[in-house]
């Protein structure tokens, strides 16, 4: 089934300004793990905001699980299907206790309290934070806060999660934690994931990446062949992981190496 369909989508913030998105055609299937990369201002966050109807396209059509985001009567249902996680968990956590925070969205939806309890428990378990239910969010590390923000979204039982630079403010451990939680959700619960990042090492771990530049999709496909075209990536303001960059530098100096995406591979090839 198609989770997300964007047909000839354009977006303009104001009539005189430039197009933030131009003629986007994109289909994402249920259960896919898709990475989105692109330079600053290329339209990634705008695209994300169209998916849970924070914005409506000024041209074309966005369908979520077959529902058109233009139709007012669909909006609530779409927002239940698509959960958003932003860069800074502090902006997303509102309550003084972790479990209240996770319950917040459900209460807003008018879910009966007997169900809320069950869904909060399950969401906290999914992100492995059940032992912290009575903590205050400010007592948590950044990685833990980001897990709680994610639990708040999971409690809504979305079929798709959109994450907009969720690890930008996290320490290296927190970054790994969030990535592995998201991977588990995708693999074990078959949740569709759209993952926006500037960290190429993270993007290289998704099933498929979408590369954006100046409001358009300029490449799409598996990460390895796309990252192999370093010149193109550099041209549009992106880069490749350090290990790939080192491999290219070695190749230029005469070493015979294939396209490389991870450390194990490089070490094996050199020694």
């Amino acid at each position, binding site marked *: 089934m198609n989770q997300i369909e964007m047909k000839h989508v354009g977006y303009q*913030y104001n009539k005189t300004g430039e197009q933030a998105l131009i003629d986007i055609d994109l289909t994402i299937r249920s259960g896919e793990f898709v990475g989105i990369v*692109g*330079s*600053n*201002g*290329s339209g990634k*966050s705008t695209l994300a905001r169209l998916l849970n109807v924070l914005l409506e396209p000024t041209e074309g059509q966005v369908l979520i699980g077959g529902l058109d985001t233009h139709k007012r009567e669909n909006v609530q249902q779409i927002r239940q299907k698509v959960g958003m996680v932003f*860069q*800074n968990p502090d902006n997303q956590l509102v309550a003084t206790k972790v479990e209240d925070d996770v319950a917040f969205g459900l209460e807003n939806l008018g879910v009966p309290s007997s169900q809320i309890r069950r869904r909060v428990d399950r969401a906290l378990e999914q992100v492995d934070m059940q032992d912290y239910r009575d903590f205050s969010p*400010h007592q948590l*590390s*950044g*990685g833990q*806060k980001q897990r709680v923000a994610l639990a708040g979204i999971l409690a809504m039982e979305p079929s798709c999660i959109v994450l907009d*630079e969720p690890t*930008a*403010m*996290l*320490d*290296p*451990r*927190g*970054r790994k934690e969030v990535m592995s939680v998201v991977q588990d959700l995708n693999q074990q619960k078959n949740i569709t994931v759209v993952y926006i990042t*500037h960290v*190429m*090492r993270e993007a290289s771990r998704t099933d498929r990446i979408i590369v954006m530049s100046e409001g358009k999709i300029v490449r799409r496909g598996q990460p390895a062949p796309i990252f192999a075209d370093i010149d193109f990536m*550099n041209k549009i*303001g*992106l*880069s490749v*992981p*350090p*290990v790939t*960059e*080192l491999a290219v*530098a*070695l190749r*230029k*100096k*005469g*070493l015979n190496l294939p396209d490389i995406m991870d*450390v194990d591979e*490089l*070490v094996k090839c*050199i*020694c």
Partner: protein
Amino acid sequence: MHMLIELKNVSYIYEQEPPVTALEKINLNIEPGAFIGLIGHTGSGKTTLVQLLNGLIKPTSGQVIVDGKDIGENKKGLKDIRRRIGLVFQYPEHQLFEETVYRELAFGPKNLGLDKDEIDIRIREALNLIGMDFDKYSDRSPFNLSGGQQRKIALAGVLAMKPGVLILDEPFAGLDPRGRKQLTELLKRLHEQQNISFILISHRMDEISYLATRILALKEGHIVLDGSPAEIFSQPEKLKEIALDIPQLTEILFRLQKKGLEVRSDIFDIEQAADEIIDKLRSRNIC
């Protein structure tokens, strides 16, 4: 221009229920011309520490001393210190407040008492340094920019003040790879050519290792590591314990060493690392 910053027994407690001790008995000298990389897990006290350094907050106990003077005892001096010690905030949206990019960037230089022409020159220079087009952005509202664009404007605002000490709190977060690379090279150039001292907070070990001359690691409000990048990043296990990591390049060099290729592991520049690997492969003629 050159300033010596000293912290003596500095503690900071956020007064709330329950109180949070963010820093405990910190003693530290920051020598003029240093490039300090400040690392530590989320919530370790990095932002609190740099806010103390330019007088945004006052220590609960202990002293912050700039050029021999306790900044807590000198109200007039504080204004001067904020001019000379520039701070780029972790969240740029906390820093931006004017209606247009131009006015945003003019704010600091105006406060310095500069005339209109000089202010205009400074704004153009600052936008040029961070690689943003003057004509395209000067009339835009800073609030209608993308995340990365906002961060660059916040940085340009501080650069336009030409501070002697520049403190950057997570400046790479939200920047695209080209922006990160440009900023990295800009900081290196400013440090080498203009003698500005730097304190750089970042969770990105790749950039920290490339830029810093000295690294401080915080854990739960204490300085637990203090040394050169080579010293700090030769302790991967210790770093992992405190939620940190080594740069990917360092990891590769260690792994090659384990496989018997005797490369140096204290290199933080990709080109230099490539030369070192080729060199050792040639001289050993194995592998």
